[in-house]
């Protein structure tokens, strides 16, 4: 419960150790117990994947919750038996490029929606909400058919290429994230850019030199969300990237365990940890923005 129990009474000033202990138990003790249970629930799959990654035998059947040994055989297998580095590079390419370009495109649009009044503004904003109900992956059949013919004209952006899939991802750049950004832009006082414009700054200078530095938190949170969702994207990538060399790490890992589930589990575990590493790192650096960014969207509604 969120409310502190307030105890008053004559014995308040002369409590014995026993009373203090029971008071601690009712106020805080049970919270620690609950948290240990939740932490155990949160941790056991993570522990399992770490111990499986270190497991010298590298099979699912021999993997235990507690590490049974510490060997790097699985990592070595992963690097030598699969095009792991290519997969990893592909994943990072998609996640980083998509996050960067999405943040830029979204911020540009949010600036227009927040600071300018023009015909079609309202329609545009509502349209962005409506299109959210038809996410891109629902149109996967059409995207597949579309790129079957695009690939004939432009092999460079057809199936199994990085640029083709990136273009598809960028189709979703303007989304609910633009709304999140627009909300944040609205909180920056208008006087700031008005005074800059009085001083002769162009709208582009206002955007790049005044607005962008002030809205860094929301840029960070949108970048983080896009990064994470791209690195975990499976549906579009699986239709697009069929060649082993072109795959992302997620698709590659899926293939590793699909072909031989029991034997390759150690290799998969190493890959799973390495795939989680970038998200863990961004989380660590952006943690102070996370609660703020998530809830500012929430409270705005």
């Amino acid at each position, binding site marked *: 419960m969120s409310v502190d129990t307030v105890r008053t009474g004559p014995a308040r000033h002369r409590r014995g150790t026993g009373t203090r202990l029971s008071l601690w138990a009712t106020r805080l003790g049970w919270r620690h117990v609950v948290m240990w249970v939740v932490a155990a629930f949160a941790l056991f799959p*993570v522990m399992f994947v770490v111990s499986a990654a270190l497991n010298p035998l590298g*099979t699912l059947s021999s993997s*235990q919750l507690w590490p049974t040994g510490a060997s790097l055989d699985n990592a070595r297998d992963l690097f030598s038996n699969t095009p792991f580095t290519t997969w990893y590079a592909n994943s990072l390419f998609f996640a980083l490029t998509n996050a960067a370009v999405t943040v830029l495109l979204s911020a540009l649009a949010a600036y227009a929606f927040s600071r300018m009044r023009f015909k079609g503004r309202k329609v545009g904003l509502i349209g962005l*909400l409506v299109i959210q109900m038809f996410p891109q992956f*629902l149109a996967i059949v059409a995207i597949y058919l579309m790129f079957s013919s695009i690939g004939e004209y432009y092999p460079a952006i057809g199936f*199994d290429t990085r640029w083709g899939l990136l273009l598809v991802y960028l189709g979703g750049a303007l989304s609910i994230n633009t709304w999140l950004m627009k909300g944040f832009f609205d909180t920056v006082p208008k006087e700031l850019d008005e005074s800059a414009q009085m001083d002769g700054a162009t709208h582009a200078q206002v955007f790049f*030199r005044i607005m962008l530095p*002030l809205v860094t938190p929301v840029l960070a949170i949108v970048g983080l969300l896009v990064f994470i969702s791209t690195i975990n994207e499976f549906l579009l990538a699986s239709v697009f990237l069929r060649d082993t060399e072109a795959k992302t790490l997620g698709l590659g890992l899926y293939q590793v365990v699909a072909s031989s589930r029991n034997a390759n589990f150690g290799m998969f575990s190493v890959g799973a940890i390495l795939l989680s590493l970038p998200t863990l790192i961004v989380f660590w650096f952006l943690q102070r923005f996370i609660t703020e960014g998530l809830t500012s969207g929430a409270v705005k*509604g």
Partner: protein
Amino acid sequence: MAASDNAGAPEGAPAHPSPTTHSSPAPRRPSRSPLPGGRFAREGSRVGQVVKIGLLGLFTALGVWAVLPLYIGENWLGIGLVVAVVGLVYYVYLSKRSVPAKYLVPGVLFLMVFQIFPVLYTMSTSVTNMSDGHRGSKEQAVSAVESLSVTRTADSPEYVLTVATVGDPETGELVFLLTDAEGDARVGDADGLSDLGGATVEDSGKVTDAFGYTILTPAEVNERSGELEEFAVPTGSGAGIRSSGLSTAYEGRALRVYDESCDCVTDAETGDVYTADDERGAFYNDEGQRLPQGWQVNVGADNFARFLFDPSFASSFFSILLWNIVFAVAVTGLVFVVGLAVALTLHVPKMRGKVFYRVLVVLPYAMSSLAMYLLWRDMFNTDFGVINQVLGLRIDWFGSVWGARVAVVLANVWLGYPYMFLVATGALQAIPRELGQAAQIDGANPWQAFRHVTLPLLMVAMTPILVATFAFNFNNFNAVWLLTRGGPLFSDNSTAGATDLLITYTYRLAFNEATAQYGYAAALSVMIFLIVSVISVTSLWRSKALKEVG
């Protein structure tokens, strides 16, 4: 910040106030370097101009790159579109008006081409019978029927064959590079023969290099041998060219010939007559047998009617829809309850180890969800899975209907509750603690204080998040596909599984069945869209989101 930024205001102008100090005017700083241009320059900085010209130049180059293949393919409509887009971009960025468009065009172009167009295309596909065997036009179907029935006759001319593709060797469209007895090389594709210019032909007749085509190595040809057997070049009037082995081809007569007067195909060998059925898009004979090559026709609302009224399809559609709703509600509800409970447990002043607990609890959210789904799948393994091992059970989780369902929900709660915990923590911090305390002083017990004071305030902030979480889980493809692939399949119906969501069902119909059913899958996509929008609109209607636009 602007106040300390060197490139802020023109000479003599006050420095830009920062948001924290803008109530007190900043001192004049005449020593600052002037902004290039200043108030008298309407064009902005020189650097900006150079960047703008550079980007426009790059874009023009892209446009030229895009036009070239369209020109070779004589696709005038495509060229028109590219020119129009380039023209629009030039207009927007060179004119002094239309300032908002300068900021909206880049994102909106991507949105149009890769989201809105696919959505419209999905809708138009959903009213066709498009599927394997019904992909092209009737003419294409006719020429495929004729050329595939080509057989060798005594006077069949022979060609030296080089197999090539347009574009990628593995996925590009197959073409035949054919050299006749005189040594002239021509190219044949599914539409017919045409001249081949600029090709290098060996003495043997093999083509070693041809502009615009990728010559396949024998190994690559072998990989596509299945397609090769079904590939034929129509040469008109009931004749066609087929391959015989990997390096020779022959021109022969078609056994099945289309006759326009009766709109039918006659099989010379069996004497069967197959009449065109323009409603179903295929040729049928009297016994109701059809030729495998059909064409794409408009079937109106048939696809929709099929899963609403056709008994076998309707039962799987509605059972999937029901489970889909149950899944989304269960995951959203459980994730909310667990996340809120954890947030409340930690929502107390002066608790030791709070940060430590928070890091541990959020950990699942910071892991890659894709990898974690695959991990959970193996943790639920019957024979070797750690869950059965630790609990000492031997449950066949993914083999039984409810085992699989419980497993899918459990894994998703693990992945989803940290997000709710983060959001709930933020929302709780925004609610003054005194409110609950006041209620308790008035005689409410802690539960009542929470139920009637804290929770209603909390729900104001949480409702949009819950709606979004519901909509997300309703279409959570990874959650099901990576764990169970929708299985176990119901024994009476091979296409629907016990944990299938509508989106995984759609995916399986389009990409994981022996014959891809694009039209039907597109109709399912449209249905999902309708269902999600009805649910979202009704729930968002009550929140303020739509009213805030103005």
